[in-house]
């Protein structure tokens, strides 16, 4: 699959997800995916609230988005950038190499896990 085709496929997928979550309020339907960790243990995972976050964000409701998952809301621009970078690895190998330094990856992983633990302790 060519790079352009791959890019178009990704854009189409993201657009489809956005349309879906714009139309559907995750709090009102029961058939959307649910967090296995939360169902099994009752603990919140680092990503719990991401569907409500997306729905709120698509409706421009930043307060509700912040309430759903503040960590993901803050990280979203970075995640979008890294998603673009992952698709552009061959075109920007130097940028890719510099962004993915070992300390950065470890910091990202630690931040994610720390948020997952911290939100359960603090009840966010």
């Amino acid at each position, binding site marked *: 699959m060519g790079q352009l085709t791959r890019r178009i496929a990704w854009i189409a997928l993201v657009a489809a997800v956005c349309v879906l979550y714009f139309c559907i309020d995750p709090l009102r339907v*029961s058939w959307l995916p649910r967090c296995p960790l939360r169902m099994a243990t009752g603990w919140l995972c680092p990503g719990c609230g991401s569907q409500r976050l997306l729905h709120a964000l698509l409706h421009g409701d930043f307060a509700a988005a912040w309430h759903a998952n503040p960590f993901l809301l803050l990280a979203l621009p970075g995640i979008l950038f890294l998603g673009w970078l992952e698709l552009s690895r061959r075109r920007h190998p130097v940028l890719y190499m510099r962004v993915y330094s070992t300390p950065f990856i470890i910091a990202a992983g630690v931040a994610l896990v720390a948020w997952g633990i911290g939100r359960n302790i603090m009840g966010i």
Partner: protein
Amino acid sequence: MTDIIILTSGDAQRAHDIAGLFEGGNRIRVVALTDETLSAIDPAMPLEEVWLVIDSPEEAAPSFKERFGGRVVTLAPHRTAPEAAADIIAAIRGAAAPDNDPDAAWAKTLGLKYEPGRIPGGETSGQTPPPIPQEISAAAPEQPQGSHTANPHGVEEPMPPTYLVWSVVMTVLCCLPAGVVAIVFSSMVSSKYYAGDIEGAKRCSRRAEIWIIASFVAGVLWNTLYIPMVIAGWGN
């Protein structure tokens, strides 16, 4: 054994002094720098193993650099014969074992091309030149020729995909344990790559990919099998 050709102009005394310092194990010759110099080099000699030492003005170096694939040493005018011989040996050793060369490691970290054979020369300041490559644009000699032209960014071997963003997304959306394993492999791609272990980095990249897929499959299975059962009231 290393073949060394010393190109010299004008007084060939230093070139002959240098040649005298090398042991018999090396095939070394002194050639006067003229328009016919290249044809004076033995055509039967396998060029991959030949080092060219230029004991003459700087301008001579570029025309030979291409033919010798970077194995060119330009001697600074103020170096004595033993110092010059040490320069030559350092350059040849640096090319043979680039992993031990701190300059090469830095050049790799910064994504720059580095040519170990290049010794700064031609300075008139009289100071001993530090062993820093003056020029970083030429090809490293031990690299296969194709990889230079294939990549216009100056990276000898691009970093394999770390898949960090997918690892994070899978941790958050699908299966937390498998996603965390994928993040660990993502960080290992980076650490192995920066340590120069390209093969190890590629291996970890594939492992990260496998765990991302595993996390995705686990998330999909969970949501297609378990939740519908719960919704349907199964087990109650």
